[in-house]
């Protein structure tokens, strides 16, 4: 056993110099401090993404796109295919947990100012992946072709259509026509299983490569301490094994969620039925959805909805570019202003999500 293992290692090492990689890994250290817990969320997000890829591929084996069959094929997966219920429920639950962990990961990086020089590219790729994840969520939500998804997509693309100038063509592009129809479904399948995963993989590659090359960032306050007092832990095996321990727990949590709270399928979408009461988007869109509800129809000369969408768009852009305008953090100075903004946004999202959920 042992010899086979070392022989294989040797065979590969001769060709691609694995030694260098192992040495690099062995010398890599992860800082240990009171904020260490946040370092794990990136890894958990990665793990959830892997689960999504695996369960997604499995679902694709039985899923049939198209207005006539999408709903029925999910029904088929859930009732006829062995463990189909499990795979589908895990895929749906993981999608939500993935957004959640990615969100936590993003805010921990933000508050730790880990985006500051030299990690701007890591931040930007991460943010882009987060936007893609929302795209995954939005497109994947429609694929079962059930009533709720149908109307959520209708409302969602309607909102996209309200953007001035580019909105209308964008809506038509997303819907594959003027209305949400079977054509929209075909498109969303394309986005969900080909376009988005492709883009995501490229970004993920860059992101992970940079994390490995540059190591974990430490909060500004720790840089002031003397190097001797700064505790570290080897990335391999200590940190990686801890990561895996957490992944195991997350996997178990997913299985429990899938068994005890199986993801519902609902009623098949009927293009001509009237919308059921209380149509809501997925929870991670809820704060934006709720905000648009509260904005009055007209603000000065601007259309309220357009203004809301533009504000969110601009906010997202500023957020994406935070490493470039937060010069203070990059110089290694404290920037309380950034914390206040972040805190405000976190509170805003939490409060409006709760309000949207209850109302």
């Amino acid at each position, binding site marked *: 056993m042992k010899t086979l293992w070392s022989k294989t290692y040797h065979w590969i090492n001769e060709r691609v110099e694995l030694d260098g990689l192992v040495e690099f890994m062995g010398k890599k250290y992860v800082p240990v401090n009171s904020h260490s817990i946040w370092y794990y969320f990136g890894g958990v997000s990665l793990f959830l993404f892997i689960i999504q890829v695996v369960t997604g591929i499995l679902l694709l084996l039985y899923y049939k796109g198209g207005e*006539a069959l999408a709903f*029925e094929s999910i029904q*088929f997966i859930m009732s006829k*295919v062995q*463990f189909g219920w499990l*795979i589908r429920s895990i895929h749906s639950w993981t999608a939500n947990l993935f957004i959640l962990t990615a969100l936590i990961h993003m805010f921990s990086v933000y508050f730790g100012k880990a985006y500051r020089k030299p990690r701007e590219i890591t931040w930007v790729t991460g943010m882009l992946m987060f936007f893609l994840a929302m795209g995954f969520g939005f497109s994947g939500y429609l694929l079962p072709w059930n009533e709720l998804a149908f109307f959520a997509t209708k409302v969602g693309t309607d909102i996209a259509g309200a953007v001035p100038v580019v909105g209308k063509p964008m809506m038509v592009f997303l819907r594959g026509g003027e209305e949400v129809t079977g054509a929209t479904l075909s498109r969303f399948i394309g986005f969900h299983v080909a376009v988005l995963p492709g883009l995501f993989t490229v970004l993920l590659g860059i992101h992970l490569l940079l994390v490995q090359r540059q190591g974990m960032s430490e909060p500004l306050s720790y840089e002031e301490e003397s190097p001797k007092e700064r505790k570290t832990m080897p990335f391999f095996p200590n940190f990686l094994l801890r990561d895996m321990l957490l992944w195991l727990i997350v996997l178990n949590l997913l299985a429990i969620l899938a068994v005890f709270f199986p993801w519902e399928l609902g009623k*098949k979408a009927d293009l001509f039925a009237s919308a059921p009461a209380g149509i809501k988007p997925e929870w991670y869109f809820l704060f934006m959805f709720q905000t648009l509800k509260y904005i009055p129809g007209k603000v000065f000369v601007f259309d309220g909805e357009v203004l809301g969408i533009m504000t969110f768009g601009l906010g997202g852009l500023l957020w994406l570019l935070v490493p470039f305008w937060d010069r203070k953090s990059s110089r290694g100075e404290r920037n309380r202003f950034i914390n206040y903004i972040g805190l405000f946004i976190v509170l805003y999202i939490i409060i409006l999500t709760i309000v949207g959920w209850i109302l």
Partner: protein
Amino acid sequence: MAESTEPMDTQENRRDFLKYFLGGGLIAWLAAILYPMMAYLKPPKQAEVEVTSVKAGKVGAVEKDSGTIVRFGNKPVILLRNAAGEFRAFSATCTHLDCTVQYRKDMGLIWCACHNGRYDLNGRNVAGPPPRPLDEYRVVIQGEDILISKKA
């Protein structure tokens, strides 16, 4: 810590013990993951999604002057073909007490066995207790396939 003062050999034993646990746990874990995945990959008894909910068969396979019950989601639909060869489809749930209606060639009517409710070939309740006509479904002929869908 207390363990560090233990003699070396007990620690080695414990390490072996731990290795068994790690290995065994890993195998059990792999089994717990791979078993559902393998079972999932095994083609189910009914190899494909039932398509009858919309595709009601081939035009050639349906006799003239006949009616068949087709499953549409969770509801039955009656597909009628009249003597002239035209297709029509209606909900097969009797509007009286939810029995399933059938086509009666001898009467030239849609008939409900439960209370003798009768509907004409336009789905209109013409005799017996049914209070409302049957809901009509749309029939589209696409090449040789008969497609049934909900009416707007």
